[in-house]
């Protein structure tokens, strides 16, 4: 009996060792995948990935080619404006200096350069949502007369003339002979897809690695009550198009241009608030330089027009009732959305 028991124990230990080894090796594989900086990982509290990755699998070579293209001013008409001119890494890929952004020949654009972060989880792009696939977002900026002012076919022509690009494209997309626009656009997408901002204090709290301070919790309570109807979820947007009461007369019709619906006049995409402390100026046209101006707008500046968001008029008065203390509290909470690892990530 005792012998049998002993043998049994030995078997069990052997099994246990074997199992541990399997678990360990599985775990190891997992760790390798998860720590590879060139794979897209969705935090479990994020929305689903919308980009069809199976059509454009991310590789180190593709990502790095995309990064090089993103930073290459030769994508513009006069070789002066790269994507990164108006999407600066240090401020979460927005434009800190200009209001709105400045394109070729120092032309002033009409809209504020939006943050490029967490693009893999969105299904419509630009302030009016006119672009329905990430691959086509750069075409808008490249061909916009006030931004990069170039024609896509001419960008492709130029890239084919620059000797350093041919081997980079071949490495990223094995088997191609010449550079064509779909490969260029897919490389830029690979770069943008990996620009995931998920390492702010807010994220650490979500992952159970940190806790909000008392003042952050106070701010969160105010925010959840007064702002989160539109700035909802882990990305702090409901992905809808809203008129937030900036104007009575709309110089820019916004979503109506795309939807052809009069009730969309003056509506723009609710922006993500991630990294909001870094991404001034604010609004689709960059009219507010500080977050204080933004919050003051919601408190006292909202203008009534037919398409105004109901959340900004349903309290019996225009705008959102906010005390000075509440404004300060909201700002403290929003600071937890700043992702310093994101803006200092050496591979971006």
């Amino acid at each position: 009996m005792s012998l049998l028991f002993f043998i049994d124990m030995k078997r069990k230990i052997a099994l246990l060792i074997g199992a541990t080894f399997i678990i360990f090796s599985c775990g190891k594989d997992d760790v390798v995948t998860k720590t590879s900086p060139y794979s897209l990982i969705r935090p479990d509290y994020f929305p689903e990935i919308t980009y069809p990755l199976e059509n454009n699998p991310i590789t180190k070579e593709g990502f790095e080619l995309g990064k090089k293209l993103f930073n290459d001013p030769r994508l513009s008409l006069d070789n002066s404006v790269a994507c990164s001119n108006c999407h600066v890494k240090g401020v979460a890929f927005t434009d800190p200096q200009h209001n709105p952004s400045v394109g070729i020949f120092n032309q002033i654009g009409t809209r504020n350069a939006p943050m490029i972060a967490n693009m893999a989880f969105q299904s419509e792009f630009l302030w009016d949502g006119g672009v329905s696939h990430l691959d086509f977002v750069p075409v808008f900026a490249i061909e916009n007369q006030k931004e990069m002012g170039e024609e896509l076919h001419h960008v492709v022509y130029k890239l084919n003339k620059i000797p350093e690009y041919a081997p980079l494209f071949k490495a990223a997309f094995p088997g191609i002979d010449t550079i064509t626009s779909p490969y260029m656009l897919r490389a830029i997408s690979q770069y943008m897809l990996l620009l995931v901002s998920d390492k702010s204090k807010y994220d650490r709290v979500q992952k159970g690695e940190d806790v909000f301070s008392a003042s952050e919790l106070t701010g969160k309570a105010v925010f959840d009550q007064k702002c989160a109807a539109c700035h909802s979820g882990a990305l702090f947007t409901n992905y809808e198009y809203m008129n937030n009461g900036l104007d009575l007369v709309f110089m820019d019709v916004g979503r109506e241009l795309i939807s052809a619906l009069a009730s969309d006049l003056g509506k723009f995409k609710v922006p993500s608030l991630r990294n909001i402390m870094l991404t001034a100026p604010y609004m689709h046209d960059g009219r507010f330089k500080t977050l204080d101006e933004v919050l003051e707008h919601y408190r006292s500046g909202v203008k009534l027009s037919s398409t105004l968001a109901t959340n900004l008029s349903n309290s019996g008065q225009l705008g959102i009732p906010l005390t000075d203390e509440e404004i300060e509290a909201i700002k403290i909470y929003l600071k937890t959305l700043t992702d310093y690892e994101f803006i200092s990530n050496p591979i971006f």
Partner: protein
Amino acid sequence: MKQLNFFKHNKSFYSVIFLTLAIFMVSCKKDSDKKDPGNIEIEFDNIAVVNGIERQLTLVSPGSTDYGYTNGMSQTFNINLLRYYITNIKLEGPNGEVFTDHVHVSSSGTEGIYLVDEAQPSSGSVILDNVPAGEYNKITFTVGVEENGVTEGAAGGNLDPATCKMFWNWNSGYIALKFEGQSNVSAGGTTGTETLEGVTKGIAYHIGGWKTIDGTAFVYNNKTMSFTFDTKAKVEKGLQPAVHMVFDVIKLFSSKNLIDFTGNNNVHKPVDGKPAAENIPGAFAFDHIHQ
């Protein structure tokens, strides 16, 4: 009696033999009748019917004041360019023949998406291969690129946004049909997407719109249409019948809605292109078959 008994007892045995023979015979029959697949050509010929006579189109340079055509409102016009996408071709025959052209979109190229360009006569010829042998007397196709042209991501071939000249970057998607020219009644100073010095009579119809989103007024302007042939196209290995379809540019401006060149003549978004888009099915017609 014994024999009968034997037969009775071996009913299942005989059934098996009978079935096997039957299958064998059927498959033999099939084999002997079955022809190998062949090709079929679909030719899209752009024309203008003037005084009842079909005429080939003549393209002129932007700015030309030589107006060779007249629309349904007696307004004269000319043509700088005419391009359209043909997709989702399907052929059917009276005996159940069906051929659905494979549509595939990828970065290396596209299949089943054809761009007919009046400036490149060969682009009007679409050769479909591996079409099951049989007779066909009906064609269905779509003018325009459906959702997959965008949702599959940046694509090559006929959808390459750098070369197709049919891509809207601000409202990402493909123009279904692009017409540019001049009309004597137009006050438009532009032609197409360019503002040309001295061009004062431009008309541009960039007809597109593929999005359909619930709760919005997105205008879907792709058009799917079917035509029945008065004869049959016989397809098998070694034969390549040619089905001639015609597109009458006059009817683009008159088949359902009369298009007035004095207003709404610089069309660059889906909602503005709706009236002309509704004319597209009536502008196409089956013409004849070369067997």
